């Protein structure tokens, strides 16, 4: 993986936002099985705002840009997802700081900080059948790919594969956190909506990365 510019960070946010808008119905259906069906709607309404206000976000540096996005997410997405995704973004933004480019190691540190934010906010961990069950192994893969010297496209493709595999694996798990946990053992056999969302987003990133114009 090579050094990431603000342009790369912008691309990641933009693709993520578009994936959440495009998958509103799908994410909603996933959350309907043992949840309350609002996950797709909440994410779509929040990331819609990100797209709508796109040109207005302060792009002084990567940390500032991500922080502005995080504020929209945290303050405008309801449900559990707003605080979870917003906290993750905020922690990542702080970890990045006032820089205009990121080394691979910094990117991993940002992702790890985001994960710690989710765990703290959600009083949750890997194994609880949440998005963490896709996100944490995917970040492990990213770290491994970087260590192995893979390029960005290959790194994303590998991370997407890990996320999808682990999202599928949530089927076997019993939910210990979030609304799905109320159904107890009945949650076994269903996919976690948040974990699938992580896979979908990473797949979108992997798919669209090679086509991106070079950025400054």
């Amino acid at each position, binding site marked *: 993986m090579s050094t990431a510019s603000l342009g790369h960070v912008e691309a990641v946010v933009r693709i993520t936002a578009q994936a959440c808008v495009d998958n509103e119905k799908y994410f909603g259906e996933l959350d*309907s099985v043992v949840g309350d069906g609002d996950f797709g709607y909440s994410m779509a309404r929040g990331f819609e705002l990100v797209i709508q206000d796109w040109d207005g976000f302060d792009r002084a540096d990567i940390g500032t840009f991500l922080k502005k996005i995080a504020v929209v997410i945290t303050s405008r997405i309801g449900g559990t997802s707003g*605080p979870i995704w917003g906290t993750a973004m905020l922690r990542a933004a702080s970890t990045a700081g006032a820089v205009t480019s990121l080394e691979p190691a910094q990117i991993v540190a940002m992702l790890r900080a985001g994960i710690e934010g989710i765990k703290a906010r959600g009083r949750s961990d890997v194994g609880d059948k949440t998005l963490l069950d896709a996100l944490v192994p995917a970040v492990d893969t990213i770290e491994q790919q970087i260590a192995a010297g893979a390029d960005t496209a290959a790194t994303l493709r590998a991370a997407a594969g890990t996320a999808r595999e682990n999202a599928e694996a949530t089927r076997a798990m019993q939910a210990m956190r979030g609304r799905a946990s109320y159904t107890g053992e009945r949650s076994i056999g269903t996919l976690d909506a948040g974990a699938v969302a992580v896979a979908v987003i990473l797949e979108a990133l992997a798919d669209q990365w090679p086509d991106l114009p070079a950025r400054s």
Partner: protein
Amino acid sequence: MKKFVNDPQQFVPEMLKGIALANPDTLKYVPEYNLIMRIDAPRADKVSVIQGSGSGHEPAHVMIVGKGMLDAACPGDVFAAPPMDYVLETSKLLNSPKGILHIINNYTGDRMAFEMGKEMAEADGLTIGTLLVDDDVAVKDSTYTVGRRGVAGNFFVIKAVGAASEQGADLDELLRIGEKVNSVTRTMGMALTSCTPPAKGSPLFELGDDEMEMGVGIHGEPGRRREKLANANAIVDELLEAVVTDLPFSKGDDVALMVNGLGGTPISELYILYGYAHEQLAKRGINIRRNYVGEYCTSLDMAGTSITLSRLDSEIDGLLGAPAEIAIRTF
């Protein structure tokens, strides 16, 4: 989808506008934060009592804002906890020198939004107390779980706290009262049908013609068990047994009994349930001092019911009996 709706995304705002138009002398609508507030709030001599949760539970909570009840409610979208922003801005708008009380139903999303909103509001110098409501006996409560949900029993907490705050009680006193009411309140619900969120446009889950869902939540989450459809009395027996044995309620207890409709069940059926529940409690020697039959905390258009019992002492009884005025009224 058989609903009165224009744009599903405007479902909540249009409802809130309607509430404000119907109550111009008493309520105000602040569109930016889905906020319905008393027109005379905040008041310097009164703690501001705020509740926010997902929408779709009406009359809870936007239609129970008013004298002796809530000072404001800032709901999220249908079944989605309010964004943190709403909590923060609502708290600022409702800021009183006597402080602010957040009443939160115990759900992950609601807790997070209020936790974050409170942190940020406190950084701005606001004084905020937090009351968690978790009356749902359908959910196992242990250190390994997210704890019980807050459901229809929140009405009793709000009623008691609202009355006390109207009488000038300070924040600590309200916390004491709210925690006491919550600690003696238990609810169990069940569904005959699913509900249909306007943005989804189809039922959240499917129930066979001969099935019912016991221990259902108020967000269309499935319950703990799917059972064969039973008659009204058998359903009441099962709900009462769960509620009574949990606290437990005992012979000689004075209680308030609520038979709550989940949105799609007509009031005629609720009175059938009430009549039998009343008789069964009387047989157990439990004294029904107050009763509540109707819709208090719904799940959109779900056909179903929940039964709530709250144990009364003279303090709670007095607070439940104090006058109150809200959007929900017959006359």
